[in-house]
């Protein structure tokens, strides 16, 4: 989903540009000296790899197809910062040399498709992989969820941007349903492919998977402790609840989000008072009791909650282990 120019107003696109630029700046600082020393060719080849893999269209339900975003895959393989840089470069090149995705919308696209996917994917992956048993099957489960959640998070980021400064007057709820609905399905594909690809690398060159570089997988493949099983179950449960929470509003309708949006125009009530293109204040004040915004917030909170719970579980577990 490359946002073209004109979809989102100037203020929001510029704001996203600033956020994306600081995200890239942070990534550059984090990768730091090590990057310029030896990792430039690796990052470049990974970017080429992601570009190639993005051509992979996979069938989703109801005749639609999605393609891999690759953000969480890059993050798991290279670490979140280098992964985000590699995907950002892909998006830059697509915009400048292939006219794919807007020029002024570059900030939006880098934010949604590189930074959000890489950081959310990495966060989910690391949270899970620390609490799951140290087995490659667990790494694959973590990769799958990281891939799936990162795509949904990316589509949510778009919905938030549309709420802040969307042009064209589509009702926010319709945008939410279409974007998050379709991307929940695409997310499943992304998750499965991410998991299988990570699994394939893990089988041959486990040293290349940055996300497990500190885990010493083979040695730790012993029986999991009762505590880690408990944590696994809790995290899995919370993730599932969050996913259901997210997908439920869409799943209740027609599985094909866009088509449903096109047919069903019956929910047009409250959005007049919701000036699209309005500033953040509007969104906050008049938004809470407004159904569309409520749904978006709910979705955002769902993903955020998963993330936070995973992190807390991981932190507790790490403390206990080191104690």
């Amino acid at each position, binding site marked *: 989903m490359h946002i073209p120019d004109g979809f989102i107003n100037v203020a929001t696109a510029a704001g996203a540009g600033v956020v994306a630029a600081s995200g890239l700046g942070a990534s550059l600082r984090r990768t730091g000296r090590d990057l310029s020393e030896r990792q430039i060719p690796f990052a*470049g080849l990974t970017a080429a790899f992601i570009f190639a893999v993005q051509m992979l269209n*996979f069938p989703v339900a109801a005749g639609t197809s999605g393609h891999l975003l690759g953000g969480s895959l890059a993050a798991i393989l290279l670490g979140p910062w280098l992964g985000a840089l590699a995907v950002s470069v892909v998006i830059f090149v697509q915009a400048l040399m292939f006219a794919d995705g807007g020029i002024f919308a570059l900030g939006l696209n880098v934010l949604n498709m590189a930074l959000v996917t890489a950081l959310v994917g990495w966060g989910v992956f690391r949270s899970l992989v620390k609490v799951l048993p140290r087995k490659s099957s667990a790494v694959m489960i973590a990769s799958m969820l990281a891939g799936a959640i990162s795509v949904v998070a990316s589509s949510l980021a778009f919905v938030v941007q549309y709420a802040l400064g969307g042009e064209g007057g589509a009702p926010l709820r319709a945008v939410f349903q279409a974007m998050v609905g379709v991307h929940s399905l695409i997310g499943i594909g992304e998750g499965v492919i991410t998991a299988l690809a990570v699994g394939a690398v893990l089988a041959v060159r486990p040293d290349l998977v940055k996300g497990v570089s500190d885990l010493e997988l083979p040695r730790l493949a012993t029986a999991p402790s009762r505590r880690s099983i408990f944590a696994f179950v809790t995290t899995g449960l919370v993730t599932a609840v969050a996913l259901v929470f997210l997908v439920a509003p869409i799943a209740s309708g027609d599985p094909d989000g866009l088509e449903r949006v096109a047919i069903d125009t019956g929910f047009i009530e409250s959005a007049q008072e919701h000036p699209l293109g309005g500033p953040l204040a509007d969104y906050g004040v008049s938004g809470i009791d407004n159904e569309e915004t409520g749904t978006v917030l709910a979705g955002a909170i769902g993903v955020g909650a998963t993330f936070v719970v995973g992190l807390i579980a991981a932190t507790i577990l790490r403390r206990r282990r080191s104690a």
Partner: protein
Amino acid sequence: MSGVHAHALHFHGHSLIHRLPAAVKLVGLLAFVVAVVATPAQAVWAFSGYTLILMVLLVLSEVPARFFLTRLAIDLPFIAFALLLPFVGEGPRVALGPLSVSVAGLLGAWNLIAKATLSAGASVLLAATTEVPDILAGLSRLRVPAVLVAIASFMIRYLEVVAGEFRRTRIAMAARGYQARSALDWKPVAVSAGALFIRSFERGERVYQAMLARGYDGNWRTGAHETIARSQWLAGLIPGIVAVAIMLASRLL
């Protein structure tokens, strides 16, 4: 998604536009796009102005219209999306033949189609008239961090190599009867993606050795920038400046 033909958008030529330094064209493109995006949808005259600017540039660039228009087709999925808007939009509705459409939605569709198409047209023109290494040099001139430019240059260099390896794998899979029909068929594709990553990474290791062998010491040396005369900046930015002026007028009127 575009295919992996690193030069699919490039049209070889030596026109005025081709010869303009890439940095100037990049700044001009950004100015043009910002102007287009910031224009109110009702200001139809402004969009006619932008279209005229783009057409003049197209003629000056000597890029054939047919070439330009087929490359512009990348815009199509969004036009499809925009065409839905009149049906899902809100507020007063008007009859359009047998259909009832929203006035706001109609305006929204026009807004998206006009802005996305004009901006994509400008991007296509840049890509058609600028060689990839020149775009990279232009970015580095515009102070894009050297590391990002370096990653991009490696990416572009190895795009076809990696995509070629991927294509060969998939041909080999197809030759043995593989065809993706449903979700159950993802596995071989994903596993081949994993294998492709390993090959890409190992090539990265060899490339790094080749860089060391030729004295790489961690400092990425970009070549000296060609100097851009002030007159080139001024001349090159005329279309962008005119677009911004139109935009300002459209917002004030």
